[in-house]
């Protein structure tokens, strides 16, 4: 036998074989397994040189190399009984002393007296001998004095430690769903069939869910099911390779991608890459065989999105394109190296043909009825029990979108109206019932085929964008208006019903909807007045939302259309959207305090672009030396004016030079802020505030605000209040954390 096949010093091989573990859970499970074991080993001073994890649907694998064979010998400080129990009235040691010394395996003379509190050892006070030589009674009752010993611990063999750690970690792995089997064994993700656990070639003895760890593995479940003995890591990998099993997922992914790319080229096209689908294929095979199939080219008349979705969702298959068109072929995985009888290909083609025939049937049936005639069908589709049907939602969308469009550019109104009217119509098509992922896209395709204006069909097509933090926005302002309106209506409706996401629960996808609102508001082609739009949205839902509790008389409402009874929901939604904004700005690299200061500005709670621009201005200005002075002063002003009533400033009451200087400077600031407000020029506003640094510094040095003369004091507070008001339009600078230079 090749000597490289012998187990190496310090290597650990762990393989757990189970019935097929769900693809979605595999990557996370081996990751957790590796991390947990690594942490446990490191906490015992056992550092492996390398740690590799791998999986197939039927195996979880860990390979560690360079692991010490034994824990280091070490010492541990042990706290014993309190001195008052350890010595009798005559100062002689009691039985507790002997017992403690025995427990720690040390001589009594090696014990010492320490300070201790709450079980923690503090400083050593004296030796045991010194304690004995003390006069009887002295210190014996001293509180907080304990015996302590230094215990030597002989490091354990790694294999013994692993036998304890591995089953504990394996059993505690987190799975999204677990099961029991047989007489009630479990819970675990699937029944376990075999465990290989070898440290330096020797079995690590433990039991997992009724299975004893050993040195026998097995091949592919149908092609090479026979068990085989394993000596060590290299031997194991060679044995799998000889059975065509590729245990490392990254390697399977590479092989699949290469194989598919090459097949696509041979077919005269290029592979349409889909990394997410490829990851799924990697997790459903042990042998990454590429399977190619074809279908009737007449089916290429189906919209590309429909073909690709059917192939992806039903057959986990990738597509091949040429000149922007899909070729009548598909590529997927088979868990075997080859297809000797052509049965695998024939079977897959049979299924694809049936699926695509279905899709074609739905497509033709859908197209036989114009979208306009389908609108009536929306009355039968419930959006939400209390919020009504999709027909009602569509009517609200038209009004809300038009109100928003009118505020931006009345020329948008015709396209926005048409897009909003047809936005949800595809929910009444067979295609969307069959392929729910194609919501919006199907409507867009049908509208395009019926000759709708580009802005309109694109708005329908793109309505669910952005789907996440990186997805593109709807193309064009018409799509952005309707997508915003759709989300605002949904958010206002659910918040109005009190269906607000809590913790990790968000069954209606409201966080994603709010993220969409934030991104469109920040990045859209137009400036949207979210506050006004939200007022309209709540107004349109007025009759649908419950009126609960007593409405405070005279409660202010954000917009005349919003019922005072819905004021709370409105405020909760504003906070929810602002939370999302905080999150987005954080992800874009703004520091926490920059975001907090910009969010604290007194300039429109939903003016998201303004808030983002303020954060950007703060980020660049905070490098300036004056900025720290102003921020420091802002904190001081905030402290002084906190809880104070508003006073009126009179220039005539200024007595000191520094006071007058600040007054002049604040007048100048006022003018500059008025100009900056007009242009929304936050950078200019910040430099204007910066120019206040010197007069503020001198003011706080020379002037005592809390003067015994009440009149002087009130006037000085009034001056600071007026400055604070100016600065607050820009940002709440008191939120900025000032780093003190060393």
């Amino acid at each position, binding site marked *: 036998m090749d000597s490289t096949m012998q187990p190496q010093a310090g290597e650990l091989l762990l393989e757990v074989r189970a019935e097929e573990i769900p693809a979605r859970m595999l990557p996370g499970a081996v990751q957790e397994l590796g991390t947990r074991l690594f942490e446990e080993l490191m906490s015992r001073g056992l550092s492996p040189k390398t740690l590799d994890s791998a999986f197939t649907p039927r195996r979880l694998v860990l390979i560690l190399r360079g692991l010490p064979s034994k824990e280091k010998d070490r010492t541990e400080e042990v706290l014993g009984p309190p001195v008052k129990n350890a010595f009798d009235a005559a100062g002689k040691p009691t039985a507790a002393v002997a017992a403690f010394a025995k427990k720690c395996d040390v001589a009594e003379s090696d014990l010492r007296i320490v300070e201790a509190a709450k079980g923690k050892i503090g400083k050593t006070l004296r030796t045991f001998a010194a304690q004995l030589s003390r006069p009887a009674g002295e210190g014996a009752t001293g509180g907080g004095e304990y015996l302590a010993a230094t215990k030597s611990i002989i490091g354990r063999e790694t294999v013994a430690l692993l036998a304890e750690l591995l089953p504990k970690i394996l059993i505690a792995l987190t799975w999204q769903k677990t099961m029991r089997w*047989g007489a*009630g064994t479990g819970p675990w993700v699937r029944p376990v069939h075999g465990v290989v656990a070898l440290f330096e070639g020797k079995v690590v003895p433990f039991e997992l869910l009724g299975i004893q760890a050993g040195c026998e593995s097995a091949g592919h479940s*149908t092609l090479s099911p026979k068990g085989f003995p394993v000596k060590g890591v290299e031997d194991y990998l060679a044995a799998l390779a000889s059975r065509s099993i590729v245990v490392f997922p990254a390697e399977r992914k590479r092989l699949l991608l290469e194989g598919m790319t090459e097949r696509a080229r041979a077919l005269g096209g290029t592979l349409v890459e889909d990394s997410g689908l490829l990851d799924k294929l990697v997790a459903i095979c042990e042998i990454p065989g590429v399977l190619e199939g074809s279908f009737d080219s007449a089916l290429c008349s189906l919209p590309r999105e429909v073909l690709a979705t059917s192939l992806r969702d039903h057959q986990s298959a990738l597509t091949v394109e040429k000149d922007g068109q899909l070729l009548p072929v598909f590529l997927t995985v088979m868990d075997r190296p080859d297809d*000797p009888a052509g049965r695998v290909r024939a079977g897959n083609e049979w299924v694809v043909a049936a699926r695509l025939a279905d899709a074609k049937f739905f497509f033709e049936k859908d197209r036989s009825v114009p979208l306009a005639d389908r609108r009536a069908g929306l009355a039968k589709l419930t959006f939400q029990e209390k919020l009504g049907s999709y027909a009602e939602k569509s009517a609200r969308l038209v009004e809300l979108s038009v109100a928003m469009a009118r505020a931006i550019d009345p020329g948008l109104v015709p396209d926005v109206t048409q897009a909003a009217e047809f936005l949800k119509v595809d929910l009444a098509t067979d295609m969307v019932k069959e392929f729910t992922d194609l919501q919006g896209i199907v409507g867009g395709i049908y509208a395009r085929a019926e000759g709708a204006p580009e802005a309109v069909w694109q708005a329908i097509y793109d309505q669910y964008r952005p789907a996440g933090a990186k997805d593109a926005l709807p193309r064009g302002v018409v799509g952005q208006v309707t997508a915003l309106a759709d989300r605002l209506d949904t958010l206002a409706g659910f918040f109005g019903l009190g269906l607000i996401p809590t913790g990790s629960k968000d069954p209606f996808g409201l966080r994603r909807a709010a993220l969409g609102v934030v991104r469109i508001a920040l990045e859209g082609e137009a400036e949207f007045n979210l506050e006004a739009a939200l007022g309209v949205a709540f107004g349109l839902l007025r009759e649908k939302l419950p009126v609960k509790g007593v409405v405070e008389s005279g409660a202010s409402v954000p917009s005349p259309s919003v019922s005072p009874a819905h004021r709370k929901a409105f405020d909760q939604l504003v906070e929810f959207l602002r939370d999302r904004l905080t999150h987005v700005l954080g992800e874009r690299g703004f520091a926490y305090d920059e975001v907090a200061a910009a969010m604290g500005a007194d300039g429109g709670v939903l003016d998201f672009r303004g808030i983002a621009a303020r954060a950007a201005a703060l980020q660049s200005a905070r490098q300036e030396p004056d900025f720290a002075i102003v921020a420091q002063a802002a904190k001081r002003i905030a402290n002084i004016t906190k809880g104070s009533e508003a006073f009126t400033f009179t220039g005539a009451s200024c007595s000191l030079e520094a006071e007058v200087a600040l007054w002049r400077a604040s007048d100048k600031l006022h003018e500059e802020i008025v100009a900056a407000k007009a242009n929304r020029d936050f950078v200019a506003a910040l430099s204007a505030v910066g120019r206040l640094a010197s007069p503020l510094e001198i003011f706080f040095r020379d002037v005592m605000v809390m003067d015994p003369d009440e009149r002087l004091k009130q006037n000085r507070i009034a001056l600071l209040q007026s400055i604070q008001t100016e600065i607050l339009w820009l940002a709440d600078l008191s939120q900025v954390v000032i780093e003190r230079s060393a």
Partner: protein
Amino acid sequence: MKSFQELILALSDYWAGQGCVLQQPYDLEVGAGTMHPDTFLRVLGPEPWRVAYVQPSRRPADGRYGDNPFRLYKHNQFQVILKPSPLDVQQLYVQSLEAMGVDLAVHDLRFEEDNWEAPTLGAWGVGWQVMLDGMEISQFTYFQQAGGLELAPISCELTYGLERITMFLGLEKSIYDIRWVPDGVNYGQVRWQDEHEFSKYNFEIADVDFLRRQFDGYENESRRCLAAGIVLPAYECALKCSHLFNLLDARGAVSVTERVGVMKRVRDLAIACAREYLASRERLGFPLLPKGPDSPAAGAAGVEVARG
């Protein structure tokens, strides 16, 4: 290539060889083999059980008047229950495919996650859809709960879609073309008229008021049986309600809001029957439990007690 009836014979023969009671279809309308009392009720409680049977399964809304080559209102499931689930159940299943004539040396067999849930039965399980060359040929489920009750021991349910498998193995273009008898009549000759007429009945003719009255009547009857302590008749009435609900649904007579309420009525009956069945078996002293090493009870119904 095996004909439809040869497939049934091969599976029956194989699973009888594994110690299963070879049972007959339940003689009522059901939507799936799971609803047969020999599955739904027998998986409850501690008694071991192995059973196999064909169950014609009616899903009124799936009917296509015999026009669609892939869809039927009534298809036949081959159903197997192994309780407790033996550790080699996957291997037993793979061998059953070989018994059906599937040569796994040339096919691609995969188990993809697919968990099963039947809210109207208060039941759920964990398992896979079994894919052969990219086609789903079986459902493989470890039952975890039934009738709202946690299960122990765990039963494994194997469900084969007989029409689909026959069709797929022969790569036929239409269900109606598959051979029922080798060199004899085909599926269409046996079943087309059934599909056509029942599609018409389910979608157009069934009298909604009559169905509603029957639903109310069977629900009431089920409650009366439960009160009288006879659970099997009570369960039969619950199955009737379930089928009547499916018929009403196919007729488009159940509104979205009404739907939840009707489903709850069926669910409540199923759960009440499950609890009562377990109590009735307990009163009988769980007759299928092995009493001792030489107990005749263990093999009483041809049940082989789990070997794993």
